[in-house]
């Protein structure tokens, strides 16, 4: 099982990795990308089971990344991990195929509650 973490902040990629471990998702192979464009390339190299992506990134935003993934043979789950969580963003994310939405700052409990159902 593979999880792709997409965030332009190195600090946040580390925090997401650490929180995944704390939430019990420590047996997964982790891959990282710094924006949607790199994320898209990573998915094409080897589809992850789950993508955890920021929204606001340079080069290609998270929502542009998700919309691009909709044109790819990608069957994994997609969860936004973002500091922005307005209703209109959640609706746009859902319409584009996002499976879940986690708002920063987050805890290991939030990761566990949100992500565990995605792997059932």
């Amino acid at each position, binding site marked *: 099982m593979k999880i792709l973490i997409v965030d*332009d*902040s*190195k*600090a*946040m990629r*580390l*925090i997401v990795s*650490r929180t995944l471990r704390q939430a019990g998702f420590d047996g997964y192979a982790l891959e990282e990308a710094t924006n949607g464009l790199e994320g898209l390339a990573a998915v094409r190299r080897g589809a992850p089971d789950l993508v955890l992506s920021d929204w*606001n*990134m*340079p080069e290609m935003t998270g929502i542009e990344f998700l919309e691009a993934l909709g044109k790819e043979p990608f069957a994994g789950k997609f969860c936004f991990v*973002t*500091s*922005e*969580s*307005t209703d*209109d963003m959640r609706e746009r994310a859902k319409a584009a195929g996002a499976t879940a939405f986690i*708002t*920063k*700052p*987050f*805890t290991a409990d939030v990761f566990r509650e949100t992500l565990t159902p995605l792997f059932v």
Partner: protein
Amino acid sequence: MSVDDESVCELTERVFGTTLGWDLQRGAAERARLANERSVTGCVHVSGGWNGAMTVSCGTELARRIASAMFEVPAEDTSLDEVRDAVGELANMIGGGFKALMPGPSTLSMPTVAEGRDYSLHMPGSAVGAELWFLREGEPIVVRVHERAA
């Protein structure tokens, strides 16, 4: 819509508490020190239903401790890039939470970070709507909301 100081305080405390495990004290006792030492300021802009910016500033040594907590490395081993990344991400989280409190729809900018001594940030057409001081182990942190006139 005016800025609600208490909501911004709670938001800031939640971001520092959840991300770094830090409890912040509210207070302005050390505010003069920040003006006299090297400091780091992270800034995000909000545009749309509400227009303005949110900044978070602290001394460079405290910013190194923030980066240390995020990257899990000793503070003296943190690079300036890591310090900028860490403070920018705090500004991003506080700004994102603040944006959700204000009328929308709005967009949030990527964070920008300034570091140095004796600098000022000027945002044309805006005024400081809130200035909230905190302490972490006696070191000051200030969060400012810069509100642009409609």
